[in-house]
């Protein structure tokens, strides 16, 4: 197969220089580096090219609904006739053979259930091991559960996975192009999996990662509880970087963004620590198509100075007509860990918004309160502070549920 010579992958803004050290020239064929764990590094766009070069446009890559096969016997004769002609052409057989194939290989040949049989019911005399296992499981559920329905987490997970399937954009300009690549991006702590398009910039992914540390509000507010601070950490500390394959991609969109990776680079260069040369780049100049990455290999996303998340690209594939086709919905969240929110200690109903330390009123340190209970307990009707305590606004990680 042709080994792609990359030339200069498109990376606007930079002077065309890409990471020179990494993946050996043009070998962009994903192969295991550590078996079953991760691949060696390859260039995403080149990988896409390798696939697109091997597939036919309308047949494999198109995002329109595929034509349904003409059923044997049903449908107009002309439909089946032209289909037979296509079959005969592709397979190199005669028209009669093609018609025969259509009959022999029809879907009706695979029917195992009679008319009227419910696909939900396991048939009685079955040899299949899988069904045996399932039957036992169902019986167990019948015996032990009063109400058999999916639990909240399961419904939530299923909804996340499928909520965007098949969504078409209203504005056709938002339509994904054929041959676009979809990367599956898994982040740890908080566990979430996002689908991101190859043509999207790294900054778009950065913006869509919800981390609770972004919402933290710094400062002690026991004396001024009403002063709801406008500035959350996300607005104050805008720096962030991604680390992929020896390059730190820093967010430099705003003037206050700093290069967080400089510390690391300086540290690594100060002594011979055994790491290769690190590079820096601007996050906003790169799309996912421009990257060299290993599938299945852990990389890093760092923001707020020291809040670090391990990120793994779990999968790359070509877009399919059943996927969500609305560009604006990407990066798309498809899997999220359900986090139990911390409730107010007093009412046990609302999510905690305040946390106190050294609180004479509180039975434990630290103690969590919702807004109403907090004010009721710690302030009198005029709003004067009662007792001694330190109070901080609290953002629960489960806020994103």
């Amino acid at each position, binding site marked *: 197969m042709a080994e792609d010579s990359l030339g200069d992958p498109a990376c606007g803004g930079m002077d065309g220089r890409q990471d020179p050290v990494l993946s050996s020239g043009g070998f962009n064929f994903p192969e295991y580096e550590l078996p079953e764990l991760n691949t060696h590094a390859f260039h995403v766009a080149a990988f896409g090219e390798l696939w697109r070069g*091997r597939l036919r446009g309308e047949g494999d890559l198109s995002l329109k609904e595929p034509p349904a096969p003409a059923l044997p016997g049903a449908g107009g004769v002309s439909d089946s006739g032209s289909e037979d002609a296509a079959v005969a052409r592709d397979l190199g057989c005669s028209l009669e053979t093609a018609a025969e194939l259509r009959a022999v290989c029809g879907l009706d040949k695979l029917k195992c259930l009679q008319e009227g049989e419910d696909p939900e*019911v396991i048939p009685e005399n079955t040899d299949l091991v899988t069904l045996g296992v399932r039957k036992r499981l169902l019986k167990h559920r019948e015996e032990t559960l009063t109400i058999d329905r999916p639990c909240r987490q399961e419904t939530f997970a299923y909804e996340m996975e499928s909520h965007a399937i098949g969504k078409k954009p209203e504005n056709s300009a938002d339509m994904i192009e054929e041959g676009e690549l979809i990367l599956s991006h898994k982040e740890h702590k908080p566990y979430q999996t996002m689908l991101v398009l190859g043509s999207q910039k790294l900054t778009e992914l950065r913006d869509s990662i919800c981390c609770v540390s972004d919402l933290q509000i710094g400062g002690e507010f026991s004396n001024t509880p009403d002063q709801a601070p406008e500035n959350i950490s996300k607005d104050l500390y805008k720096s962030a970087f991604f680390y992929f394959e020896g390059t730190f991609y820093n967010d430099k969109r705003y003037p206050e963004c700093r290069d967080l990776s400089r510390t690391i680079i300086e540290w690594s260069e100060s002594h011979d620590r055994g790491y290769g040369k690190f590079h820096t780049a601007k996050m906003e100049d790169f799309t996912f198509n421009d990257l060299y990455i290993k*599938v299945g290999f852990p990389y890093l996303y760092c923001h707020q100075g020291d809040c670090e998340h391990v990120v*793994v690209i779990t*999968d790359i594939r*070509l877009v*399919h007509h059943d996927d969500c086709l609305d560009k604006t919905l990407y990066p798309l969240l498809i899997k999220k860990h359900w986090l139990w929110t911390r409730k107010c200690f007093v009412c046990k109903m609302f999510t905690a918004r305040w946390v106190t330390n050294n609180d004479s009123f509180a039975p434990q340190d630290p103690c969590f309160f919702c807004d109403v209970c907090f004010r009721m307990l710690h302030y009198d009707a005029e709003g004067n502070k009662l007792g001694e305590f330190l109070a901080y606004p609290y953002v629960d990680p489960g806020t994103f549920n």
Partner: protein
Amino acid sequence: MGSSAGLKDDCEALLSRFQEMDSVRFEDFTELWRSMKFGTIFCGRMRNLEKNTFTKEALTSAWRYFLPPYTFQIRVGALYLLYGLYNTQLCQPKQKIRVALKDWDEILKFQQDLINAQHFDAAYIFRRLRLDRAFHFTAMPKLLSYRMKKKMQRTEITEEFKDPNDRVMKLITSDVLEEMMNVHDHYQRMKHVISADKSNPEKSLNLIKDDFFDNIKNIVLEHQQWHKDRKNPPLKLKVKGGEEKIERNSQQSERCERAESLAKIKSKAFSVVVQASKSRRHRQVKVDFSDSESSQVQTKTTRKRRNKETLKPAGRKVSSRDRGDMQNLHKEDKSLSLSMPVVTEEDEENESFSETEFTAPKRRRKQRTKS
């Protein structure tokens, strides 16, 4: 989860019955499919999420059998199985079959083979799957998330679905034979040309046997025939004790794989033996085959002259005799009494198991007194 083990058993049950039918026709497959009611594998009130996961697993299990090193028949069976599973699944929208880039070329080659061999139903099925856009074109076959903690499940290759490991046939393919014939003819012609007497080449140029090429051909054909004979009777035996033998073998395969790999390492260390000069022939180092338990010699020597193939641990010899599995025993190992054609050679001592090149045989042949 229990379902994945169950899936593997069911797929293998279906595929081994298909293999026994000795046919690659879709009609035969659908007969089996309907008799096993395989389409009901999705029944049973699975909730949505479970349905998705199970279907994905089912497609992945079936997919494994579609790629090499499985035999042609198994691969066609796997294709039919994929078609069946894809179309009988209950998920809406349908779960897709993942294809990795590295496998796609192999698959296209397979498709071309099907068309060339005029297995139109299989080719039609594949074409149908492709038109229905049943595939997801991915980087790697499964999602990778660097899970170091979970024990990596060793994907065991079901031995009886594989072609027996025939190193002889792998080396002496028909291309090689043809080329050898051409070279031989060319060589003969050259000899004629450069000799003084145009009709008879010089006696001094008689360095090889003239009928050497025919000999090779005959030996290879004999070998092929032996292979076929060995395969066929076991098929009938399979029908009887089919299931328990499959199970026994899969259990043994893991043990044997390990034993085999140990033996391979050993043999590699010991098999490289220097050919002693003629004066020291009496002190030629021989590789020891007396240990029939674990001795496995993989050699790359003069395959043309004998059927030297890999030995398998004797532990399996019982089952292999019954099932005629992929075991090609070393002919020198007389303790394993299989019905193997023994090609007698004279100069056995000199044929030590050095990893000789292609050119070495020419030198040895000089020593043979008769063919």
